[in-house]
């Protein structure tokens, strides 16, 4: 019974997914293939949220910034006409560099807005997304002159909205391919996710993870103990941004094309919803929350439009339902978290009064 009480959100979503799967009339093979694709595309984004949650900053919606740096790196690689493994290495290197830099700036802002990190990170995401769009839509062709003019629009200003990212996806396809239901998938992204999961596993137990936990559980205590809390928080945000950048590279490599202006949008909400569906709160998140959450959330995400079609004769109902779920689960998580905190406070008060 205690298990059910502690994991009420994942269990409820699991039941919903089973119902949606039943009414969607999909085959299990189709569903698992779709979930596999979405799993490799979204997993690292969700893992990126763990460290900021641990150090008490809530959900870092500014992981968009990481995605942006990866997109920039891919466009640069296309601009320089790089191909093959060289392109992939270039993209990884440049995006890591950019995401460390941008992550540092994000951390600077978030440290100034203590107590409002979540909403500020939403605004940072929005602002950096439009500045990025501005650069590629207006500055490219006017201020920056690309070597490869094929990436520009016909009017000579602005990058095309869809670019072929074959140079990276070719590398992806060659490593560990396997066939399932007539389509070819690769195991390479899973390998990367595994490596990054291990890195995160190590980081959580290393010095930075312990410090982050201390800062997250009580900021003023941590400060009196002499922990440089701002520095810890900055490092967590930077790591989170780098993870997001790597995730976006996997997404582009798997997808084969890059949506220059819209490819990075919405990922933050999906990641946040996934980690919360997996049973995390805005103060505590574990890796198993991520894995469970991503699979559950995306399984529901895939089945619900079809279920809506079959139940109400209207596919958009399922779509609305899943976007309600994505946002609603965030509200519920915040409410539950604050209740828990209130109860904790009352308990401490009662104990001290005794």
């Amino acid at each position, binding site marked *: 019974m205690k298990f059910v009480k502690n994991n009420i959100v994942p269990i409820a979503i699991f039941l919903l997914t089973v119902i949606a799967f039943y009414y969607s009339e999909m085959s299990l093979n189709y569903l698992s293939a779709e979930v596999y694709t979405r799993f490799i595309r979204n997993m690292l984004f969700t893992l990126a949220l763990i460290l900021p949650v641990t150090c008490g900053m809530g959900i870092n919606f500014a992981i968009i910034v990481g995605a942006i740096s990866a997109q920039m790196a891919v466009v640069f690689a296309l601009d320089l006409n790089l191909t093959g493994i060289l392109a992939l290495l270039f993209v990884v290197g440049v995006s890591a560099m950019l995401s460390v830099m941008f992550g540092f700036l994000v951390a600077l802002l978030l440290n100034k807005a203590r107590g409002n990190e979540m909403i500020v990170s939403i605004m940072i995401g929005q602002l950096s997304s439009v500045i990025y769009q501005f650069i590629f839509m*207006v500055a490219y062709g006017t201020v920056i002159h690309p070597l490869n003019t094929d990436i520009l629009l016909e009017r000579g200003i602005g990058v095309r909205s869809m670019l072929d990212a074959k140079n990276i996806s070719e590398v992806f396809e060659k490593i560990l391919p396997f066939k399932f239901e007539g389509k070819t998938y690769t195991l390479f992204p899973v390998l990367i996710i595994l490596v990054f999961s291990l890195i995160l596993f190590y980081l959580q137990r290393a010095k930075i993870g312990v410090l982050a936990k201390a800062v997250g559980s009580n900021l003023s205590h941590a400060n009196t103990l002499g922990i440089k809390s701002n520095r810890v928080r900055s490092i967590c945000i930077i790591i989170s941004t780098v993870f997001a950048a790597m995730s976006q590279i996997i997404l582009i490599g798997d997808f084969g094309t890059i949506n220059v202006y819209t490819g990075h949008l919405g990922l933050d909400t999906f990641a946040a919803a996934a980690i919360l569906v997996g049973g995390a709160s805005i103060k505590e998140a574990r890796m198993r929350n991520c894995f469970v959450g991503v699979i559950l959330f995306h399984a529901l995400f895939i089945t619900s439009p079809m279920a809506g079609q079959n139940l109400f004769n209207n596919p958009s109902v399922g779509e609305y339902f899943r976007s309600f779920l994505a946002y609603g689960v965030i*509200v519920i998580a915040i409410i539950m978290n604050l209740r828990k905190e209130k109860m904790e406070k009352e308990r401490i008060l009662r104990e001290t009064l005794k």
Partner: protein
Amino acid sequence: MKNKKINPPQLIMAVYMLVLLIVTVMIDMNLADIINDALIKWAMNGVIVLSLIPMINVGAGRNFGMAVGLSAGLLGMVFAVNLRFTSWTGFFSSIAAGSLIAAVLGFFYAKILNQLKMNEEIVGTFVGYSFIPIMNIFYTFVPVTNRQMLYPIGGQGLRPKVNLDIYFGQVLDNLWQIKIGKLVIPLGLLLFLWGTGILLWAFSKTRTGMVFSAIAENERFVQISGISVNKYRTIGIVMSTVLAAFGVVVYSQSYGILHLYDGPFMMSFPAVSAIVIGGAGKKKATVVNALAGTFLYQTTYLLSIPVANALLIPEMAEILRTIVTSGIILYAFIFERKDKRHEVREK
């Protein structure tokens, strides 16, 4: 009126507007047209911005969950258009029905926010976001009999955009227009905006209004003096929600289109940004803040459209607007921290 100092966002926006104005004059835009449009845009968005005031003044933060109130207003209009009410009947029955629904929704919204003091803004954002898909499901199934509002094929579900021209489009815009040469001053529309503003100002002078600002200043003190803080917060939040419903009716009649579904999705950020430009703080906002801020925000957006078109990059206007919106809100959050630290020291 203690704080008359011009704050940085105001200064930046004023300079930005001046630059845009010079450029528009240089590219031979008709100044009279711009002024006409600016006045309409000001009043069109003004009521929505005014709706933020009660919630800020009662200390419940800026209403990022405005979509709740906006949806109520949209529902009011769906009701009026479904009964084929035209002209003033349509306008006022929309407002009446909208504010009734808004009062009910606002009450529940207040219930949620009262549990989550100090976190209203982030929770409000996501309450608003998650409320929109609920409304979308409602729009899909609502039994509407007016064929003009339904999808042409299938006959189920409202259209995303319903034309209001034959119902009550521009009814307020065209009231008491004064024409001076090429200038057209929509006096009726402006009077509606100013009237709402004056009512809000008068409200802040009543006893309830005084209690509002006392709560914003020191909630615990008010609580100790025996006043139910949650009751006043509920009043403030319901007021904001009802005013947002008013605002969206004014907005839609001016726009001429009833924009359902994802229409209210991104409306709260520009409104919050406008009131911040006007100089409102986290816990204190005046009518002048809202009106001045809306004018600056909307006019700069208006001016940036011809400039962007002249540069042959029409997408730029929207990009610049979003940069302004999120930049200003970001500024507000980061600047606020000083006030907070101050409060802690006082305790």
